[in-house]
């Protein structure tokens, strides 16, 4: 067999390669470079080897303590919002109309929060929650509930979580709704004939048919909440104290607040690695879940 050799293909790949190099590879390599060095300004750099990484993973150092604290905070945040948004999204999707003009109305209303830019969402909630002029803050305080997200840790957390739920539950709901819509009517009719209760219909038909989209929803929401920056930064600025300082906020504090480029670079590499690993795990789980199943001939 003669192989056709055609080197022209390289010219087609080259532009993409250049774009990726300048947009991703070179910046990333710069970060790798920084993570191995220390600087005291004046554009002078000193070799530090894996020193920053050691410090980062050692809770007894200042850097390590701050990183691990923000990491746990972030994981806790992601867990809480997933625990709220996924079930809530399913409930919303189940209660949405299946046909008629109401569908369009619901879809538009659901999509609205998704269209608002992050920092606008932050600003909305920052004002909404203010005890002096915000509708929410003022109302709560007039009801005798001492609510102040600036000074009270619990209030700050509650505000950030409710804000995220408000912003992103509709994404989960829309995904679930799409999953529900793809279930043929025959399933419901068969369940009716089989005498299934509402709960049995949910566990035997709706939930299994939604599991693919639910996995996607969990992945998207986990990644997004794990990388969250803008909204909590606008509302609480990471406070009170460090109570709502998530990993990305900590990263910006170190990089731009203290101008510790080496520490920040090391932190961002580890942060990046965690995200890639989690993505990979999700991806593997998802493709395996799909591979188990035989392609359903025509049933979709």
């Amino acid at each position: 067999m003669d192989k056709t050799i055609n080197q022209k293909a390289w010219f087609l790949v080259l532009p993409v390669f250049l774009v990726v190099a300048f947009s991703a590879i070179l910046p990333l390599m710069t970060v790798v470079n920084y993570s191995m060095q220390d600087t005291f300004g004046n554009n002078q750099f000193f070799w530090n080897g894996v020193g920053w990484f050691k410090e980062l993973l050692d809770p007894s150092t200042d850097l390590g303590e701050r990183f691990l604290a923000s990491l746990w905070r972030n994981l806790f945040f992601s867990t809480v919002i997933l625990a709220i948004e996924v079930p809530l999204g399913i409930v919303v999707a189940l209660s949405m109309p299946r046909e008629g003009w109401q569908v369009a109305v619901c879809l538009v209303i659901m999509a609205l929060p998704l269209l608002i830019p992050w920092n606008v969402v932050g600003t909305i909630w920052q004002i909404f929650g203010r005890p002096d002029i915000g509708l929410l803050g003022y109302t709560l305080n007039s009801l005798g509930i001492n609510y102040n997200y600036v000074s009270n840790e619990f209030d700050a957390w509650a505000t950030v979580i409710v804000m995220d739920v408000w912003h992103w539950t509709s994404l989960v709901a829309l995904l679930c709704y799409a999953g529900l819509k793809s279930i043929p009517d025959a399933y419901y009719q068969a369940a009716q004939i089989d005498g299934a209760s509402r709960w049995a219909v949910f566990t035997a038909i709706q939930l299994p048919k939604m599991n693919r989209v639910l996995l996607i929803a969990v992945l998207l929401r986990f990644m997004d909440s794990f990388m969250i920056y803008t909204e909590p930064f606008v509302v609480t600025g990471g406070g009170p104290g460090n109570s709502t300082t998530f990993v990305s906020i900590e990263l910006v504090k170190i990089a731009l607040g203290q101008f510790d480029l080496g520490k920040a670079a090391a932190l961002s590499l580890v942060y990046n690695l965690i995200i890639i690993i989690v993505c990979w795990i999700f991806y593997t789980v998802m493709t395996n879940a799909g591979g188990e199943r035989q392609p359903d001939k025509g049933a979709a």
Partner: protein
Amino acid sequence: MARIDLVDLAHSYNGNSADPESFALKPVTMTWRQGGAYALLGPSGCGKTTLLNLISGIVTPSRGQILFDGVDITPLSTQKRNIAQVFQFPVIYDTMTVGQNLAFPLKNRGVPRPEIDARVADIARLLDLTPYLNRKATRLTADAKQKISLGRGLVRSDVAAVLFDEPLTVIDPELKWQLRSKLKALHRDLDLTMIYVTHDQTEALTFADTVVVMHDGRVVQSGTPAELFDKPEHTFVGYFIGSPGMNIVPAEVRGREARVSGHVIGLNRAYDNLPAGAKIEVGVRPEFVDVAPPAPGLLSANIERIDDLGRVRFARVRIGDAKFAARVPPGFSVRGDVAGLIFDPSHVHIYADSRLVEGSA
């Protein structure tokens, strides 16, 4: 187990509209005996699935009643009607094993565990599903899934009728025969009333004792396969059943003669009082028209082409403007493009406005 009576049953999907012509199912009254195998046959949109869904209770009729063994069950919900239904696409509960799928209807009805196990084992044996009982149902083939759908209906000991809505659509051709024979065998063993919806005449004719042919929301004929073949009561039945379908051509009929484009076809019976102004057609199945060498006294026709179907050949011929299909007798070789046609007069029928007219002897 039940006899099913449909009393003036009709349904319209756009509310209870006043215009009966827009009904998806026009008023029908008929009785299906207990233990019978019935097929509802007709093209898409003829109302056969509507009729099935009315019986199963998925759709509530706009008009009329359904009686099971004389009891009016029209207002009852699907699950109270004790019917089983197998859908076009297999319905399987994904997360469950085959056994759990079969047990599902019994579990929902609060049947005690040992009884469930016994019934599931029985049904699995009946449907040859025993080896798969502990397998996940999603991984099985389409025909096994359809058997599970059917099994979920049969596990209930009180099932009144089994309804099939084109159950073989997604089954591979070579398995269709197997599954259909299985259904036949089950029907014999279990003495259940079975109602089978299909647009495939072979499926209907091989499955059912009685075939109900539907067209445009109406039942046009209900009878045994032989009756439908020999004496179609409506031109649609003649055309829809049989391959190729019945020859139906406009004709002038007077007494014992039918004239097609000026050519005379002799009739067995006299038709003296045909309704005036009606569209008169003559219908004869290709199987009862033989091609012969042209001869005086025979109707002569132009041969357009010969379709060789293997075991039988049909000639496509033309008498004036009327197109005909006619059987080419075995061993007969066609020469030239003109042939004589021999009609079997006892199988030539006359239709007025598409309805069969009985002649007098």
